[in-house]
């Protein structure tokens, strides 16, 4: 995603928060933070968040982590706005973020879930075990070459 140039210090702070379920990437990389506005006249910060999945159990935790991080850094008056539309998509994950996932053993999303790479041996000869994995955004896969199981971050 494109990070706004404005309020860079706030973006920097929020990018220090790891995704609670996939800690190798942070909330900014996950693309859930859509907009940050600082309103000095009201001494207030407004943050727009788009959830990954409507039923994502980490939703509430995202909010708490954001409030906590900002509070620690002197922002006491923070408003969180939840916005469903435009809907969250794995297209918002940058190439760097995808590379990071692969390096950490999670196969990154690919268009239409077609070519799925094993994060262990990098083979694309893989098969799905279950479309539903340990978190709502992942599926279970297995590699036909090295036979290792792995998580795939579903294209969404």
């Amino acid at each position: 995603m494109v990070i706004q140039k404005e309020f860079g210090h706030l973006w920097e702070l929020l990018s220090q928060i790891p995704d609670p379920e996939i800690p190798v990437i942070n909330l900014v990389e996950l693309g859930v933070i859509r907009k940050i506005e600082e309103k000095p006249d009201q001494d207030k910060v407004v943050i727009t968040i788009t959830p990954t999945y409507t039923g994502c159990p980490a939703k509430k935790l995202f909010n708490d982590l954001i409030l906590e991080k900002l509070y620690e850094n002197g922002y006491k008056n923070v408003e969180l706005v939840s916005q469903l539309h435009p809907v969250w998509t794995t297209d918002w994950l940058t190439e760097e973020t995808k590379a990071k996932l692969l390096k950490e053993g999670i196969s990154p999303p690919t268009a239409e879930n077609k070519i799925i790479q094993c994060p262990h041996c990098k083979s694309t000869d893989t098969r799905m075990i279950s479309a539903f994995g340990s978190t709502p955004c992942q599926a279970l896969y297995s590699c036909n070459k090295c036979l290792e199981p792995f998580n795939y971050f579903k294209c969404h």
Partner: protein
Amino acid sequence: MAITIDKEQAQFLVRLADTEMILGQRLCEMCSNGPFLEEDIALSNIALDLIGRAEQLYILISEIEGKGLSADDYAYRRNEREYFSIKLVEQPNTDFAWVIARQYLHDVYVKEIFTQLLSSKIDKVAGLSEKVLKEITYSHVHARDWMFRLGIGTPESNRRLQAAVDHLFKYAGELFAFDSIDKKFLSDITKLEQGWKSAVALTLAEANVKQPEIHKIYMRDYREGFHSEYLGHILSEMQFLPRAYPDAKW
């Protein structure tokens, strides 16, 4: 105190919200009871989607109604007669074939509805519909795959799927007994009914399952708050904690 829903737009949305909430609760009963680990996780994931979807709908309903109630108030503080879930989703997890057939028949129905709501005049309804349609694809594909696997698997799995479909079809007539509220907020009720019937007929035929007749409703309509005998039990379990400890917080 009874919670009433007064605006027509909200009355329409609460049917969807309650349907998703109750099916989500039914699937939660499968958590740790799935036939094998991956399937257990799949059903729990689908339950999360359903409950998350219900929550978003309750939030919208609250905004439309403007009474300052929360999603929890709508889920936990209404009685059976104040609920508007379709009877299909209240049916029990008799065996895995029931779980799958119920999910499949529901997913096709709800997909058709949200497709029509993409053109809703309320931006938030249209936006949520786009989100739901993305998410429900995984559940729909999952349920349909299992329809085939059970239907053409073994004589026993076929027998069980047929029994589930025979039972669940008793509640299919109600889906299409549209009233003036449905007609107001759905763009094309005929298309909805035809879309469901043709998709379901195709899947049943491929799964080697005989399609039961769709009877006219001989039960009173969920649109007026009438339910099967199961809903009271579902709610008593689901609402126990917030009713026993009002205003309990996490």
